[in-house]
């Protein structure tokens, strides 16, 4: 039998999921090995192989694909541990990366910090000023060469950069994505001078207008490139040596995977892929559960990440912010706020009211109940005080709870306010639930979507205790905690299910009326590029799925929308349909009467997505074997904020639940890696995939 192996490496744990062609599933969790990540990677696969009664080599030999989600590149940039990087750019424009469009001083700050101007600061430059080299060359918006590339200046620049110890070079010229000739020639010269230098050209990474975001993507790619490439190559070699015959596929922030060799050239695409893997997992499960519209909510220790799946497709965006840098690259839409288990509960000094976050206890010291010296109460501590975790409870990874420390920490806030620690805990929980609901609301409403038509899927260690609260606050009636037992391997599962995805785009301002022949020619060129790339990666032409999109806007307006375009040779009727489809979508998204067709329509970019279907199997759905009320394994007193009192509540063992089981709240379902609170008035049911479906009622 053939297998699909997904491995997701996080800061603490390495998760592995093995999907069999028959829909079977095995999983493992081992500690991440920060010194040599490959060790934990292989270890996790070995443990999962053992579950299946196979040796590591046997499993790898029978694996069609090994897929991997990694934070290697993300960590390099967050910890500023990357390679010494130089930038070669157009004369006169070397400061673009330092100026950061000026927005870099406050980009990504939580709103609480936005008004505090005296604290606004740009991040430490990734490329210090003395490593930014300008060379004479110029191309205009149409791609016309106005000034040829001064090759001697390129040589001098490279010599200077080498003298200054540069290991990696980014090349980004104005309009280089329209006419890449100068960037290509520059890369050739660099390689002639030193074939060992890591070189990244902007036009290959990010063919979009906007020199700052493009240069930032390129510089970051160069910055994380050498170390990421080394990691991917070593991983690939190790697995080949153990019997795996294909290339490892690496998770991208775009929601697809790409072969290790490709990822080694474009590691920037993996930045931010962590939360995307969870969204991919949601996509996998919700498809099988028959939920086309889903709000995917991942609550971990430090943040609450939300993605949207609309009509079966995750919503996308074209840039992301990391370390206050905005980088242009395709990715799935994920919005975050700093509400996590580690969010600190405190009293605001002026209002004397309760606040939660944005400060977080992080992983170290972590919540007080971790017993690592944290003394300020967090949301996790609030859940401890409410009795959501058992007195003998363990957190994921076997960390034993110090419940007394939670109480002690909660008292530090409660006493000055003249409140009971339990009241503070219940209040803090209501506050975060409400904040999470507001984020979900904003994400949907602002895109013209009605949140009530969506099902929240809630995963991540801290989410199960809040899902009922934020679902109710959002005014939605049902929510899903996916896969129960398997929830901890959820991201690995998402990785395992992902398709190869390559995106090629062509940015050019085209005004209506559109010429169908012109559009067809561009699409066909992009399609042949994507097709060739997928075929070279061994994808059967039958498994290749190509789709076309046009990024459109009204002239004099800012909003762009991505509109699907039919395949084949486009006709005048097709372009007319495209215009009306855009106007329709525009009014659906931005409101009736918002379309301003008088100004004329514009296309900013054409894009082709090429998917190499991996045909990973669906999960095997179990027959309904339960069908009754499951037997609790115990009970305990839990304080339910909406009742404002403690009530004896059933405790159910998650792993013991079977499909068809139904039960009513109040109850706590305990899984190895998470707990789920079924509030009074809620009811829950286990479906064939092991998902816990919660009907939220009574609040």
């Amino acid at each position, binding site marked *: 039998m053939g297998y699909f192996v997904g491995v997701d490496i996080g800061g603490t744990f390495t998760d592995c999921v093995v999907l069999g062609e028959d829909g079977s599933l095995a999983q493992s969790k081992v500690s991440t090995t920060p010194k040599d990540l490959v060790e934990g990677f292989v270890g996790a696969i070995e443990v999962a192989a053992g579950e299946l009664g196979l040796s590591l080599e046997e499993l790898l030999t029978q694996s069609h694909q090994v897929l991997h989600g990694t934070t290697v590149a993300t960590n390099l940039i967050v910890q500023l541990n990357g390679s010494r990087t130089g930038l070669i750019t157009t*004369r*006169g*424009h*070397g*400061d*673009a990366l*330092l*100026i*950061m*469009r*000026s*927005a870099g*001083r*406050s*980009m990504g700050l939580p*709103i*609480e910090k*936005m*008004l*505090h*101007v*005296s604290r*606004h*600061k*740009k991040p430490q430059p990734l490329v210090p000023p003395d490593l930014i080299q300008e060379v*004479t060359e*110029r191309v*205009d*918006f*149409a791609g016309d060469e*106005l*000034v040829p590339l001064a090759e001697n200046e390129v040589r001098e620049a490279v010599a200077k950069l080498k003298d200054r110890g540069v290991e990696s070079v980014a090349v980004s010229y104005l*309009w280089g994505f329209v006419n890449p000739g100068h960037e290509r020639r520059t890369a050739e010269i660099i390689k002639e001078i030193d074939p060992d230098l890591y070189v990244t050209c902007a036009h290959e990474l990010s063919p979009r*207008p906007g*020199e*700052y975001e493009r240069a930032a993507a390129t510089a970051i790619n160069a910055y994380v490139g050498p170390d990421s490439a080394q990691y991917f190559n070593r991983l690939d070699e190790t697995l080949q040596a153990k019997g795996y015959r294909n290339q490892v596929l690496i998770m991208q922030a775009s929601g697809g995977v790409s072969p290790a060799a490709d990822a080694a050239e474009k590691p920037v695409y993996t930045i931010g892929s962590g939360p995307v893997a969870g969204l991919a997992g949601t996509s996998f499960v919700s498809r099988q559960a028959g939920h086309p519209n889903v709000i995917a909510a991942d609550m971990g220790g430090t943040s609450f990440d939300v993605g949207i799946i609309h009509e079966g497709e995750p919503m996308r965006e074209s840039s992301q912010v990391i370390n206050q840098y905005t980088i242009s690259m395709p990715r799935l839409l994920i919005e975050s706020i700093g509400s996590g288990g580690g969010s600190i509960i405190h009293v*605001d000094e*002026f*209002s004397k*009211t*309760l606040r*939660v976050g944005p400060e977080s206890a992080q992983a170290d010291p972590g919540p007080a109940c971790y017993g690592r010296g944290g003394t300020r109460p967090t949301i996790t501590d609030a859940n401890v005080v409410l009795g959501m975790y058992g007195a003998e409870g363990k957190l994921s990874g076997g960390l034993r709870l110090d419940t007394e420390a939670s109480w002690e920490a909660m008292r530090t806030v409660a006493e000055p306010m003249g*409140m009971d620690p339990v*009241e503070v805990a219940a*209040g803090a929980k209501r*506050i975060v639930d*409400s904040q999470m609901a*507001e984020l979900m609301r904003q994400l949907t409403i*602002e895109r013209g979507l009605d949140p009530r038509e969506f099902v929240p899927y809630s995963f991540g260690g801290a989410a199960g205790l809040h899902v009922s609260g934020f679902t109710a606050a959002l005014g939605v009636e049902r929510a899903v905690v996916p896969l129960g037992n398997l929830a901890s391997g959820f991201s690995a599962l998402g990785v395992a299910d992902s398709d190869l995805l390559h995106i090629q785009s062509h940015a050019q*301002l085209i005004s209506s009326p559109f010429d169908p022949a012109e559009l067809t020619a561009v699409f066909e060129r992009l399609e042949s590029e994507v097709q060739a790339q997928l075929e070279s990666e061994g994808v059967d032409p039958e498994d290749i799925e190509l789709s076309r999109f046009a990024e459109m806007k*009204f002239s004099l*307006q*800012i*909003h762009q929308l991505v509109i699907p375009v039919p395949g084949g040779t486009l006709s005048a009727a097709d372009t007319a349909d495209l215009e009306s489809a855009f106007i329709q979508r525009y009014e659906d*998204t*931005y409101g009736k*009467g*918002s379309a*301003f067709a*008088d100004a004329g329509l514009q296309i900013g970019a054409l894009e082709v997505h090429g998917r190499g279907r991996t045909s990973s199997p669906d999960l095997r759905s179990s027959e309904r074997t339960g069908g009754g009320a499951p037997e609790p394994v115990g009970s305990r007193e839990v304080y339910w904020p909406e009742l404002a009192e403690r009530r004896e509540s059933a405790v159910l063992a998650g792993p013991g639940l079977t499909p068809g089981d139904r039960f009513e709240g109040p109850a706590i379902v305990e899984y190895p890696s998470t707990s789920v609170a079924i509030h009074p008035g809620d009811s829950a049911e286990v479906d064939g995939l092991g998902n816990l479906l919660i009907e939220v009622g009574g609040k």
Partner: protein
Amino acid sequence: MSDAQIEWDGIHYPYVAPKQLDIDPSVRLHREADDEIDPVTHEILRYMLWSVNLEQGNTMLKISGSPIGAYGHDFNPAILDEYGDSVLMGPFLQFLSGAVNSGVKWTLENRGDNPGIEEGDIFLANDPWMASTHQPDVAVMAPVFVDGQVFCWVANTLHQWDLGGTAPGGFNPAAEDVFWEAPCIPPLKVVEGGVIRKDVEDLYARFSRMPKLVALDLRALIVGCRVAVERIQDIVERYSATTVKACMRKLQDDSEAAFVRRLDTVADGTWSAENWIESKQPGDRGLYRNRLELTKKGDRLTLSNRGSHPQIGAINCTFVAWAGAIMCMLTSQMLFDQMFVTEGARRHVDFDLEPGLINSATRPASVSGAPPGVLQMTTGLAELVISKMLATSTDPELRTEVQSVMGAMSYPQTSFAGKDQRGNDFTGFFLDPLGAALPAFSWRDGEDTGGYSWDLQSTMPNVEDTELFYPVLYLWRRELPDSGGAGRYRGGNSAEWAVTPHKTDSVRMLNVTSQICLPAPGIFGGMPSSTHRYQLVKGADPLGRAGRGEVMPTSIDEVEGEHRWLFAKSFDDRVEDGDVWICGWSGASGYGDPLLREPAEVETDVAAGRVSEPWARRAYGVVVGDAEATETLRAEIRAARIGGEPARKVAAPDPEGRSYGEGMVISDSGFSCRHCGEELGGLDANWKAEIAKSRELELTAANPIIREPDIYTDEQVAYREYYCPGCATMLDNEVVVAGSAPEADSRIRL
């Protein structure tokens, strides 16, 4: 005219809302609030109201799709209580704060009986004497009704493309009076009982050269408000009106508590700052004083415009705009943790206003050019007087808000028009100067191209964005070394860009700005900023030269041709094929004597290209790489300052002393030098005139980017520095216009 004769009603004089509004009895206000609100419900409601405020702004932007809103952030949503006092101001353009308060209060006082204020009504206004910073900023204001009573208000403001008048877009630098400009609309009922009044909408759109876009934006403004009205009504239904009102009151009270607590830590006193608006109209070479005085007594602040120039030409600003400029800096420097709840400051501010001056224009003065000129300059003056006041604080944390003047005390507003590269007519304006620069603080340097304090997310367009839509080619856009004022902490550097027409014959430029001649003042011995540097170089042929293998010019010195200076107000600077048009905006000014800056910090700046080596020597007395030479040079500079070897040595400041800025200490006995202990006279005396040593220098000594003032003005202009007579530390400096006397800018009462 005596104050008794002035009617502050917004008709001729500006509207200044009375403490007690006179509201028609037919308008019933919902005033009840719970006495207490539990701390958890308050926090949930606070966050929800925040979310409503953002949603109301975002909904407006979403429907409008306006690039002015999206990139220029020229909009703001607000939630106000039933009296029009502010509850939440959105996180966008901060100086719009205040205009809608005034607009709502005026509406309550003047529209209650006729046409009435009823459920489902929405009012529109752009009258700068009562509701707007200038005519293009249109506000809509919607009462939120609960049980037949006005529970609160929501309002949105958005800058419009064009509302008519003699110049497209609304700025006419040659305007003689308000009749040259877009019409002023006092609060007008545009939505009645939930229905847009077609007659009103048609009239409004009829003013504009772009009626359909203006109509679209009007819908955006209205729908944004409606969304907020409905959400607030939902929240009231869920939590009860008196609870939600209690949350609103508490937000205001908490903000007030924070403001008063901070005010308690500062000394009483009076602080002043001034600068000059340049050129009242194209061709004019005059300088017009803009003066701001802040008096703090107990828990009250009084702000006065007295001493400013009478209103004149096209440079004026109304009270609404002027007050907004001041309030936004009070919020930024004193309520930074209050999440845009500005009411705390407002409750403690009084205005001592002399009408008819450039910052308090009476009708029918021209006022549409206020934002890039007097308004923005007033944010800088407010920054200075607030900083001087905060420097007396006993709270070291609050003293970290003491700052110089941010980069660009006047927006270099340049419109451009012509035929674009596709053969169509175009008009636009450069948004590059949104890059601005943050001020120097009492503890850190200003952020280079760090944006404005009043637009927290200001974002420059990419060069490629501008080149894609307009027929210009950028030869360079780079940070300007030395543009930030020298100081113990350096002001943020600004940037400069240069364009040549591309794929068109010519481009016409129109300027409405100031600060081309005179810089922004530094603080506590920090040096002034640079000035805007506008230049047109005829016949430069940059691309031709590069094509012939010569240098592609990427700095002002490399451009060959006939160099011409451009002026603060201009109509038609024609830039033709092969010409190069250059604009560098001013940086932020400095904080503290530059000789007190650590030489290592100066060397780092020189290495990074942020400060030039010659300026490092002149301003900072630093010889790069030579500590000994630095020490000698610094001693020479000190001696030159006071005409001989200083009698006292510079010593480490006494940690027990109550510092006043970088250079001084204050005590009951008066000012003294923080670095040598020299007594400088009483806290109410003019130490600059009586005790300090001073030198009058050429203005160009203040910053290397400043040019000879006689290019721009016929006034006598100089630069004067004030030193401690004991150790020659620079304690302050002033730009001197027409021989103005040393200013007692800090009069403190401990």
